[in-house]
């Protein structure tokens, strides 16, 4: 399957740490968006970004783990990502339904103005 002439991976290549840093960055930006935005839809965007960061972590661990090389349960990380995708889809549907409901009640989706229960 491997085309001839491709050298084995060497020290120059990207490592697990690279992917983890990227996923950490995306997760952090997701947190900032989710906490720092006023619009409910923007908050949902932040949550999706966070889930994306987690997905990248899972896939990177799956790719660089020893199980991948030895061949036992090599793709468990992929299966987990499938579950994360499912939960993300369900969560997006519910959250957007709630946003629409909020809009019907209040004519706004700004979360700062939903302060009826604030002490």
């Amino acid at each position, binding site marked *: 399957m491997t085309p001839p002439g*491709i050298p*084995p*991976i*060497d020290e*120059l*290549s*990207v490592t*697990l*740490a*690279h*992917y983890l*840093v*990227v996923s*950490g*960055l*995306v*997760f*952090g*930006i997701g*947190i*900032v968006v*989710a*906490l*720092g*935005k*006023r619009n409910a*839809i923007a908050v949902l*965007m*932040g949550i*999706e970004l966070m889930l*994306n960061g987690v*997905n*990248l972590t899972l*896939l990177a661990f799956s*790719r*660089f*783990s*020893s199980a991948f*090389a030895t061949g036992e349960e*090599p793709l*468990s990380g*992929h*299966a987990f990502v*499938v*579950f994360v*995708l*499912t939960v993300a*889809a369900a969560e997006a*549907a*519910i959250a*957007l*339904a709630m*946003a*629409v*409901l909020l809009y*019907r009640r209040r004519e*706004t*989706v*700004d979360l*700062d103005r939903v302060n009826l229960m604030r002490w």
Partner: protein
Amino acid sequence: MDSTGIVIGFWALSAITVVSALLVLLARNLLHSLVFLVLSFLGMAGLFLTLSADFIAVAQILIYAGSISVLMVFAVMLTPLASRDNGNSLYLLPGLFGGLGIAVLVGFVAIDTEWAEHRGAALAESDFATTVGTVGQLLLGRYVLAFEIASVLLLFAFLGAIVLVQERRRGDDDASQDGASR
């Protein structure tokens, strides 16, 4: 393994992903930040490809870039009078601290730890041709219970979304008046 291709691809794609994620934060308009969000999802799908996860990458495009963004579009369309700016809330400062802290923490741990990762010959020998089949066997074999629970979760989310946004007709004298005021 072609190290140069992967290195270039990783840096370019991670730059796209992170920069467009930042632009989601910085854009002044909700729709602009939605576009950047989709760009970020696509970059993330490319990163999945560099991790040789072709099924997950395509599923990412299908679910995130294709479906969840469209759901957000629907939410934007169904709230016509709501404000479209991407304003910051009271929690921006705590959010900034929290996000920065977590990013720094994850980065520190990722760089500082001696990961027992497998590289070199062991990685080159592993076979990627059957990602779909293997993931399918895992989902319907070892993780079948979680799979079923996930499907039930999807069903309930579906029903819940319908029940939440259902407009009750005027003739219904429902005890709970929620939603009927519209």
